[in-house]
C-alpha cells in the first residue's frame, strides 16, 4: 500500500467570483519508503498539497489516502486523531514551543498520542541521540542553533513513527552547508526507518537528495 495516494484532488478557496483554485485535479502516489521532492514557484499550490496530505486542510474534491486512512471524508475530530499518529509535520518556521526544552518538545508529540511516559522518554532520548543532539536535551529552543532547532522539529515529526512525514521548506532558513546536512539527515532517517516523506522546497540543489522530483504549477502537477 502506498504511503500517500491522492486522486483528482481539487482545492478551491473562496467561492463565486472570488474563488481561487489552488489545486486542480492533482493525482499523486508516494511509495512507502520514498523521498519525494515537490518543487514549484510561490503560489503554485505546494503548501496546499502538503496541508491536505497532512490532514490540516480538507480537499474540495477528490480522494486522499494516507496509509489505511481515507481522510477526505474525516471530520475535525478524526483529523485531529489522524494528525496525532499517522503523519509527522516539519513546519517552515520550525515552530517549536519556546518554553519547552528540546526533549519536552519531542514528548509533546508522543504523550498526546497516548504513548506511555517511560516509553516516550526512551524514544525521545534515542531520537535526540540519533539527530546529534545528545547533551542538549534540556536546552530551550532559544539556546539552540538554527540547524539544531530544525533537527528537534524533525525529531518531533518522527516521534510517533508515522508512515508519512511532510517537510515544508526545511532548508529555507539555513545556509547551503547546513541545508545539505539537514537534507542528508532527512534522507538517512527516511531510508533508515522505511518512512515515506514529501519535501516541499524552493531550493533546487536540495532535490538531489530525493528519490523523485515532482513539479507543481498553478495547482497542476507537471512531471
Amino acid at each position, binding site marked *: 500500500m502506498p504511503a500517500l495516494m491522492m486522486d483528482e484532488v481539487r482545492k478551491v478557496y473562496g467561492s463565486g467570483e472570488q474563488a481561487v483554485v489552488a489545486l486542480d485535479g492533482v493525482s499523486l502516489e508516494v511509495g512507502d519508503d520514498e523521498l519525494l521532492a515537490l518543487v514549484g514557484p510561490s503560489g503554485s499550490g505546494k*503548501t496546499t498539497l*502538503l*496541508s491536505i496530505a*497532512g490532514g*490540516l*486542510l480538507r480537499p474540495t474534491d477528490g480522494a486522499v489516502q494516507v496509509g489505511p486512512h481515507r481522510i477526505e471524508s474525516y471530520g475535525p*475530530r478524526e483529523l*485531529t*486523531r*489522524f*494528525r*496525532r*499518529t499517522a503523519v509527522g*509535520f516539519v*513546519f*517552515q*518556521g520550525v*515552530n517549536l*514551543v*519556546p*518554553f*519547552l526544552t528540546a526533549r*519536552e518538545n519531542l*514528548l*509533546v*508529540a508522543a*504523550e*498526546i*498520542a497516548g504513548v506511555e511516559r517511560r516509553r516516550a522518554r526512551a524514544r525521545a532520548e534515542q531520537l535526540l541521540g540519533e539527530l546529534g543532539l545528545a547533551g542538549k536535551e534540556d536546552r*530551550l529552543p532559544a539556546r539552540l542553533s538554527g540547524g539544531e532547532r530544525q533537527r528537534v522539529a524533525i525529531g*518531533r515529526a518522527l516521534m510517533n513513527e508515522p508512515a508519512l512525514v511532510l517537510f*515544508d521548506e526545511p532548508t529555507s532558513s539555513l545556509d547551503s552547508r547546513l541545508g545539505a546536512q539537514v537534507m542528508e539527515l532527512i534522507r538517512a532517517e527516511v531510508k533508515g526507518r522505511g518512512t515515506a516523506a514529501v519535501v516541499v522546497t524552493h531550493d533546487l540543489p536540495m532535490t538531489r537528495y530525493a528519490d523523485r522530483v515532482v513539479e507543481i504549477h498553478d495547482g497542476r502537477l507537471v512531471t
Partner: protein
Amino acid sequence: MRPARIGATEVLRRPGRFAITAAVLALLVALQVVLWGLLDGLTGSTTGAYRALGADLLVYGPASRAALLRSQVSPELRARVEAADGVAAVGGLGVTLTWGRTDGAPVPTDLAVFGYERSTGRLPAPPPPGDGLADRSLSQEGVAIGDVLAVGPQGVPIRVSGWVQDASYLGQPGLWVAPATWRRVLATAAPDRVLPEGTWQALVVDAEGDAAAVAARIARATGAEALPLDEAISRLPGVEAQRASFLQLIGATTLVAGLVVALFFALITLERVRLFGVLKAVGVSSAQLLGALALQALTVTGAAYAVGVAAAVALARVAPEEVPIRLTGGRVLWVAPVLVGTALLGLATSLRRVVRIDPATAVVGR
C-alpha cells in the same frame, strides 16, 4: 508532555507573563476577604447584644418601628403579651447608650448599658445591683474584672463582675446590669427618656412553636410590634444598609476579577494563536487546549487566592483597633469558589477564539 502539563510548564517557566494578573487578582482577593471581614465585624459589633439574647422574639411598643430607644412596653401591655397564645417566658429589656470610665482612664469608653430580667441565650441571670457583666471587648481597653466603671454624666458606679462574649450593640460594648442599676443609669444619662417602674423598652420572649406565628399572634392580640429575633437584628439601624453596600462592593470586585481574567486570557490567547495552531497541527484537540488553559487559569487564581488571603490576614493584623475586621474560615473559603467560577467565566470569553484556531495556520502562517 500532555497539554495540561504544557500549560503548567509555561506557568513555571514564564512566571512573569502570569505575575501581573496574579498580582491584580491577589489584590482583589485581599480586598474581598477584607470586605467580608469588615462586614462581619461591623454587623457583629452592631448585633452582638441581640445575638447574645438568643431569644425567639423581641416585642416592642406600638408604633416604635423596632427602635429600642423610643419603644415603651407598659406593665399592662406586658400582661397581655404574657397571656398571648404560644408565649412561654417573658423578660424586660432596656438599653441606654452612654459612656463610662475606670478610675484614671484618660478617655471614657462608649457603653450600651442593658437592663434585663432573666437569663436567655448566652446571658447568665442578671448580676446583683451595682454589678455588671461587660462585653469582653472592654478587656482590650484595659478594663478588668473587679474594676469599677463610672457610668454616664453622673458617674453611676458599676463593678465589672464578669464577661459576656460578643455582646455589643450599635458598635458600643454592652454592659449588662440588673433592672434597678439600669434605671439609675437611664435617669442620669437620658433623663428625658426615663420610664416608670415596670415599664420596659422591649420584652424578650421565648415562644412555643413557630416564632413567626407567635409574633404575628402577639401583634394581633396586643397591638405591640413583635418580631422574630432574626428580623429584629436585620431591623437594627444600619444593618441592612451596611450589608447591601458591602455586598455591592464585593460584587463589584468579583466583576472586576472576572474582567481582569477575561482580558488577560484574551491577550495571551491572542499572543499564542500560532503556538496553538502548531499544537493543533500536531494533533492536540481544542478540548485539550482549553483544558490546559483552564488549568493555567486555576493555577493563577489559586496562587492569587493564597497570596490574597495571606495579605488580608496580614492586613487584619496590622489594622488599627477601631477597624472591626473579623476574619472567619468560612468566609475565607467562600471567596475561593466564587473566584474560581469567575476566573473560568472570564476564560470562557476566549473559548470561541481557541476553538476557531485553524491548525493550517501552522503551515500557511497568520
